[in-house]
């Protein structure tokens, strides 16, 4: 029998970039195929071609052995291809039924919407694939995991046979991810076929039947989970051996560097987003703040770094009250901040690498004398940091916006870590970066810890938190639910806390004693 989907020699050239270079891919009926690759490897381009958003320059697409041409997403849907996007395409003020039927409405005589009929189909789909959802709920009231189910139902409602999941776990808690995997298994059990795009090795090993690795637009390898492990997959993905576990030296935490007591932060609508948070960060330790994105971590970091006003509470840094301090005062006390959104907050994209490397210090000697900028010193500084931090740029004058994401992040890391600092606030320091960059940035953060710097690490990636932190604080709806030492604590325990459930036992010990580093 012909495979349900086959791609032959797909090539897509963008100005100057060969995004897909003669990619061959086969998807059999009833299997989960994981498409693994770093950011920028060409996964998304390939899937956009399959979904009709781009036209390939060369190559052909076969569905059930028959050559087809897909000109638009509408074409793709009519041929049974559906995609669950990383960012949901749902309308919050519509109900589940309305969202699902949108664009494919069933109508009664006279052109009136037939909601009951649609709702009934949703119920059928929901029960046959274990996709629990209430058709009459408004999407805005649903948790992220359920919203994702609505997305899946949308595809099944349109009779999709091939489902593409684009980084589906990025927004989920570990428990929600596990539920998603169960759903995916039940989908393939009933004859659907799935392409699962990811860069997370653990998920690939957990769910895929087959793995295809893409690097720089080419298929570089194919394997199955039973023949592979994380290290071999990472090596295939990156093209060299990768050291996944950061070797942590034992350090004894020193004095309290930053202490936060009863901090309350309100957003501009006067909603409390950080609710009575108290934390202490000591010299030589990494305190990880875990939590699903949007639970107040952003505002917590902004309050500590002076970017947002605090409503109540007190923050002390090195013995000084910084509750009302400006960002510059806080920086001058010896704080470094790696911001969550590097392009929006951390960099001025049209400015040169050299200027961005002194963004927080150009007003000081030796980068300026009086008000006159000393570009000689600024360039010398840039050349040194470019070498020290291995920033790949043609020269210090290149606008930072033309560098890759990893190199942009390195510019920030270089700028922040090259200053004499005692407190590092790193918010999602590896978001959207490839394995090589993640490895490098983790090493640098660990190095600061060993030098005796206090580190506050905020990340929605639980793996990152568990790999680096000495202690873990879990944030849920603005509150810190627990602060636990990162010794033998299980991922499930933290995962439950991230979902707002405080487990009854004080702590569950992990079966694996070694802290697992997963990417």
């Amino acid at each position, binding site marked *: 029998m012909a495979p349900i989907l086959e791609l032959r020699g797909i090539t897509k050239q963008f100005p100057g*970039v060969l995004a897909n270079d003669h990619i061959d891919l086969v998807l059999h009926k009833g299997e989960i195929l994981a498409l693994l690759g*770093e950011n920028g490897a060409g996964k998304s381009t390939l899937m956009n071609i399959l979904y009709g958003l781009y036209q390939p320059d060369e190559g052909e697409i076969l569905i059930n052995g028959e050559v087809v041409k897909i000109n638009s997403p509408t074409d793709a849907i009519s041929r049974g291809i559906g995609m669950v996007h990383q960012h949901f395409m749902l309308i919050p003020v519509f109900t589940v039924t309305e969202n699902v039927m949108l664009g494919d409405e069933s109508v009664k005589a006279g052109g009136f919407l037939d909601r009951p009929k649609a709702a009934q189909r949703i119920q059928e789909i929901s029960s046959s694939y274990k996709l629990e959802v209430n058709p009459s709920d408004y999407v805005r009231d649903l948790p992220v995991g359920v919203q994702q189910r609505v997305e899946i139902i949308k595809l099944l409602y349109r009779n999709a046979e091939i489902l593409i999941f684009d980084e589906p776990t990025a927004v989920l808690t570990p428990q929600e991810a596990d539920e998603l995997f169960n759903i995916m298994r039940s989908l393939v059990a009933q004859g659907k076929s799935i392409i699962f795009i990811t860069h997370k090795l653990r998920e690939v090993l957990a769910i895929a039947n087959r793995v295809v690795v893409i690097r720089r637009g080419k298929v570089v390898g194919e394997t199955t989970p039973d023949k592979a492990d994380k290290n071999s997959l990472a090596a295939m993905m990156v093209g060299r051996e990768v050291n996944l576990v950061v070797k942590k030296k034992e350090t004894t935490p020193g004095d309290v560097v930053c202490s936060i007591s009863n901090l309350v932060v309100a957003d501009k609508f006067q909603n409390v987003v950080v609710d009575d948070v108290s934390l202490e960060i000591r010299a030589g330790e990494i305190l990880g703040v875990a939590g699903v994105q949007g639970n107040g971590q952003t505002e917590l970091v902004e309050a500590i770094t002076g970017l947002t006003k605090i409503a109540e509470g007190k923050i002390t840094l090195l013995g000084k009250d910084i509750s009302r301090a400006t960002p510059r005062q806080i920086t001058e006390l010896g704080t470094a901040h790696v911001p969550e959104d590097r392009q929006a907050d951390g960099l001025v994209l049209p400015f040169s690498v050299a200027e961005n490397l002194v963004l927080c210090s150009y007003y000081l000697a030796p980068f300026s004398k009086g008000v*006159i900028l000393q570009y000689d010193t600024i360039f010398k500084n840039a050349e040194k940091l470019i070498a020290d931090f291995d920033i790949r740029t043609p020269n210090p004058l290149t606008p930072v916006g033309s560098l890759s994401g*990893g190199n942009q992040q390195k510019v920030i890391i270089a700028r922040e870590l090259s200053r004499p600092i005692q407190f590092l606030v790193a918010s999602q320091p590896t978001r959207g970066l490839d394995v090589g960059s993640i490895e490098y940035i983790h090493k640098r953060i660990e190095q600061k810890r060993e030098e005796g710097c206090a580190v506050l690490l905020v990340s929605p990636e639980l793996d990152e938190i568990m790999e680096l932190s000495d202690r873990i604080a879990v944030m849920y709806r603005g509150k810190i639910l627990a602060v636990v030492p990162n010794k033998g604590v299980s991922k499930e325990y933290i995962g439950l806390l991230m979902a707002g459930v405080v487990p009854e036992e004080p702590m569950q010990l992990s079966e694996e004693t070694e802290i697992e580093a997963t990417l």
Partner: protein
Amino acid sequence: MSEAQAEKKDLGQAILKEIVPPPEEEAPRKSFWKSISIPALAILTGLLIGAVMIAATSSTVWAAFGQSIWKGFGRAFAEIGAAYQALFTGAIGDPVRIVRALGSGDAREIRSALNPFLESLVQTTPYIFTGLAVAVGFRSGLFNIGVEGQLFIGAAAATYVGYAITGLPGFIHMPLALLAGALGGAFWAFIPGLLKAKTGGHEVINTIMMNWIAFRLTEWLLSGPMTRPGSGGMPLSPLIQKSAEIPQFFQAPIRFHLGFFIALAVAWFINWFLFKTTWGLDLRTVGTNPRAAKYAGLSTTKSIITAMIISGALAGTAGAVQILAVNRSMALGLSSGYGFDSIALALIGNNTPLGIVLASLLFGTLRNGATRMMVVSAIPIDIVDVIQAIILMFVAAPAIIRAMYHLKKPKKEEATIFLSGWGGK
């Protein structure tokens, strides 16, 4: 939470992003011909369309077409030729006359042969100031549409100091009057700057409204408190004192004056200020990425107010120089839209002082030549304005020219590829 914040972008920033090309900092030098090809094609295209306009709006051409097609075309080409010859000689001068004057060695004759060119520089001068005013705003993330109004207030302040204070020596009086002009413009821009910084009131709206206040206020001043005795209620100010005048280099009718060199010096200063000082970098950082500026510890409030004051001071100086060097008294016809033209001008000049000086030369030359074209040929002033606008439109929107002539966009991707995927090997 953060996504919601990101979505609620400032409208002004959004507009700025749409209209201002990202400043190409330290871009590799393009070859001379490449950088000149787009303005040259733009002027050529503008002239071609303008030629059609000239022919189509001339009654004599229509009449000739009535006789025969060939006569019509002949007449059309004759009129277009005459008009454009006037444009050229009006803007640059008559080459034959210049050569003959140089040959004769008569200084007086040389000066008057070169007068059209010198007059173009006179027209260029206010554009340099107003273009810089707009550019300082753009660089700081502000859309100062109020340059025209600030120019009027600056001119009024300079005029007052120019005629009301007597008995000062020239080397004090003239700079004092200039300073008054700068302060007047700065004050007028400070108000919308303060409103923006403290209340978030949008500078686009506020500067437009300040323009109207400025126009009517100066009209009242000129027909009331500052009116010239015996003007019969006409909005006209007294003549300024001799000591307040910015000197003209030659005898009338040549108006070429010191203000042109002051403008060049100011352009150099603004360049130094924006690109070599921490103050300038503060402004540019806030202007390019306000969030990153806040992150870096800068005060957006301070930056907005500073930028508006500098921008307004430049606009006010434009008005002051016109009064002190050219008009010598203030009337309502002081500026025919320098403040508005300068928005397009700053964009053409890519918001760099050098670019603005070059763009100002283009605008000033065109404007001067157009005046001559109007005088010599029978083309109505409205059509002259239309032709000027068409040329400027093509100059200001290089994308149109690129699309028309299938020119390639400057390649940027190459650098990107070279850089992508570090750590990959």
